[in-house]
Structures are given as structure tokens and as C-alpha cells.
């Protein structure tokens, strides 16, 4: 089976063809990252999730957050539910852990913006 995909490791966006038999054969990639990306995409696709979390006592109502590692793609919506449950308390700094090891994925939800007391 040949699967076509666009590599997103960098803005170049190589068009890859991935042949999945006993081994995985990747063509169309201009660098090593393309091969790695394609292999991961067909075996264990992962993504960084970015969203926002409510803040109490801050100079703005929300703080932006991300997973500090890529998480399995099929966990995205479950993780979003966790993110939407929680509230942060001002002040918040970039890198502050908002949720530790979210759903046992090994990834933390960390703040990506600064919120001061307000």
C-alpha cells in the first residue's frame, strides 16, 4: 500500500510517498527528517497541542499553553478536555507547568505566555 503525505518537519513541505509492507519505504524526502516523519506518521502519529487555560486574578482572562512534548494524535480530544477543566492562578510565567504528565502521556501542559497579577 502506498500512502501519500506532505512532510511538515520544516516549511519546505516535501511530498512523500510511503510504501508500507514488511518494511516502510519512504521516497520524495529531501532530508532525513522526512523519512523519520513518514515512519512516525504511519506507526505512531504525534502532535503538539496548543490551547488556552482560564486564569484567575490575572491582567487577562486566558493564558496560552502547549504540550511540552508531542502527544499521540488520537489523544488530542481527551487532552483538550483536561485542558478545559483546569484554571491557573496569576502570576503565570512562560514554562510554568499547568498540568503535569497529562493523561500519563509523559507530556506536561506548560504556559507559553506571561500573565501578571491584575
Amino acid at each position, binding site marked *: 500500500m502506498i500512502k501519500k*503525505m*506532505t512532510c*511538515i518537519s*520544516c*516549511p519546505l*513541505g516535501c511530498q512523500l510517498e510511503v510504501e508500507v509492507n514488511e518494511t516502510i519505504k519512504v521516497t520524495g524526502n529531501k532530508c532525513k527528517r522526512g523519512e523519520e516523519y513518514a515512519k512516525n506518521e504511519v506507526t505512531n502519529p504525534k*502532535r*503538539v*497541542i*496548543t*490551547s*488556552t487555560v*482560564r486564569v484567575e486574578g490575572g491582567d*487577562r*482572562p*486566558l493564558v*496560552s499553553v*502547549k504540550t511540552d512534548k508531542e502527544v499521540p*494524535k488520537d489523544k*488530542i*480530544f481527551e487532552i*483538550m478536555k483536561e485542558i*478545559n477543566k483546569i484554571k491557573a492562578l496569576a502570576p503565570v510565567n*512562560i514554562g510554568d507547568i499547568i498540568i503535569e504528565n497529562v493523561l500519563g502521556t509523559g507530556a506536561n501542559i506548560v504556559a*507559553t*505566555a*506571561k500573565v501578571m497579577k491584575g
Partner: protein
Amino acid sequence: MKRDLVIIGGGPAGLAAALEAKKNGIDDILILERDKRLGGILQQCIHNGFGLHIFKEQLTGPEYAQRFIDEVERLGIEYKLDTMVLHLGDDKHITAINPKDGLMEIDAKAVVLAMGCRERTRGALNIPGNRPAGVFTAGAAQRFVNMEGYMVGKKVVILGSGDIGLIMARRMTLEGAEVKMVVELMPYSTGLKRNIVQCLEDFDIPLLFSHTVVKIHGKERLEGVTIAKVDENRRPIEGTEEYIECDTLLLSVGLIPENELSREANIKINPVTSGAYVNELMETSIDGIFACGNVVHVHDLVDFVTEESYLAGYGAAMYIKGQYKKDGKRFNTMGVNGIRYVVPNSICPQNVKGSVNFYMRVSDVYHNVNLIVKDGENIIYKSRKNHVSPGEMENVKLSKEVLEKVDGNELVFSLEEVAK
């Protein structure tokens, strides 16, 4: 008030220009920002993918902005928030206002324009139909969702496959909305490939090329839109109309540099980019007024905005210190045959520091072409491109040595088919 350098706009362009001017010995700098905080539009771009070129890592918009804000704070560069510039004269006289200082009259030795761009609106598209609530530009919706904390709707159609539209398709999906489709007038996307993959394909959101919205339905709130296929002249084809029920329509149909102030200062504007004509140091047609970032031409990547703005900051510093020579040989740049525009527009090699990065956009999708740069009949640069698209900016770096050898008074950038 008299200032050495006034920078209008505290987004990524203004911040980078300020830092580079400071680094080059200018201490009296004032940044004027109309929002409540520095960072510009990056503050609402909470997705990641920023900084791959400059920092060699993937940052979110607020993280990218904060690196520059921290540096501005550390160096003690002065800025005023909540401050609107009302007028800019060609004598570099600025009128600005804010609630704390009231009306301010500022005479600057040099000015950097870093006002960014604005989204095209429904009015600019002339979509027929009613005027219900629920029609937003994608960026306005992004601000509501990511900064103010309001969801803008539940069933969404997005018109235009620009990057903000794609990013918002994912964002709305993550927050529980149903994004029914993205419709794109052109037969190709104007957004970055990685956004099409990560924002649409990941969530099975259909992308319909050569389609547009021909009618908006609903009285108080949007109830639906009629979409239709378009022909090669982008005219809706009769009989292809389809009604799509939705409560929200997001528009991601292009960005326009925000040059009201530039026009007041009689700065010459390039009709192709809607931004100022600039030279090798990002100086506009008016002496001592520089410009950088999306106010000059709309970029895909903030990294390139930063790079271009460092140059403007350097240029302004050279100007203030009187080290910027205007008497040297100068030639223009031009894009033809598939190259829609080139920035910068003119080059005086003696002012170039190391090299010039020429940015350009192509006018259509082309495969297997050479991007060539000619000085008269002489080809001074050639690069093979497997795929070019108007949605992805191209750039060509030429060194000072190469630029110094240019004989003619025009450097011509063009595409040519690769000989079979």
C-alpha cells in the same frame, strides 16, 4: 518632544528594529504601540511553528514575542502602550495620543514604520446577502477565542485558505465546534502546506478549491451560506450552488499592509504589495523614514519579518549617526515573467552589510522552473525550483561582492522553464 528614533508599532517588526538600532549605538528610542501590550499579532497566535529559522526551534507566537520583549526590557528601551499615532509628516513629525500623556507632538531624527497589516473584510469582497451576526475575519475570531475567551460559534464555514483560516479551523475544532469546510476561490491554497496537513487533514476537514460563498443567509444570526463552484475567471457557475447550514463564517481572504500613516507622509506605495517602496536599508522614498515587516509586504513567516526588521533598525541607526551614504551608484530591482514583486526595490551596494536577502512572490503555481536573476543579459543567480506557489514567499540572498559588480541600472528577477 525630540527623539532620535521613533518606531511605530510594537509587534515583531518594531521590536526587532528597536533592538538592532540599540545594538548599533542608538540610545534614544521610543516604541509607540496601540495595543495594551507589546508583541503585536503574535500574542493571539498561540499555535507553534514560529522561530524555526531564527531560533532553530519551534515556538508559539507569545513565546517568540516574549523573547524580544524581554530583550527590549533588559536594554531599557522605552515604549508607550495604548498609544495611537494620529499623524506622520514627511518631516518626521509625529502626532500621537494616549490616556496618560494626552496629545504628544514628537520630532524624530528617524522613524521606523512597523504597523503590520489588516485583514480583508466582507465589505472588500462584496458578498451579497443579509448582515447577520456570525461573520468574522479569521483574525478577529482568533482574538476572541485565544485572548478574550469567547467562542464565536458552533458550526463553521471558512472562506479562504489563508494561514489564519487554516489555523482557526483547527482551533475551533479543538474547542468543540464543527468546521464544515474551507472554501477557496483559487485552484490552490494560499496557506502553508504544513498548516493544510496539521489543521485540515488531521481533522478530516474538507478543502474545496475553485469555490466561493455567493450568499449569506440569516437575519439576527447567520443561518447558512450558499457556496458555488467558480470558472477559470473566478465567476460563480450557475447550477453549482449548494446551501450549507452554519452559524459562523470566518473570512481568511488576504491581508493588506496598513499604510494610512505612510500615505500621509507622502511615502511612495507599491501598488503590487500595497506597501512602501524600500531600498537596501529598508528606507522608504522619504529621507529617514524606514519600514519593515508586514507593513512593507505580507510575510508567511515571522522569522523573515525579524530579519528584515533588524535591517531597518540598522539602517535607521546608520542614518542617525550620519554613516549612511546616499551618493553611491544605485540600481532598481524588478520582477517579470512569473515574479510578481521583489523587495527591496532599489540597491546601493556600498550601504550593504554583507548581503541582501531579496524577498519575492510568484504570480501562479509553477513546476520545474529556474529562478534567475539577470544584470542585463548576464545571469548572476540561478536556482532550480521543483514547485513554487503564490502562497509561499521565495527568497534569494546575494552577497555584497556580487551586488557591487552589477553593471546595469536594473536587476531583473524572473522564472524560466527548465529546458527539457
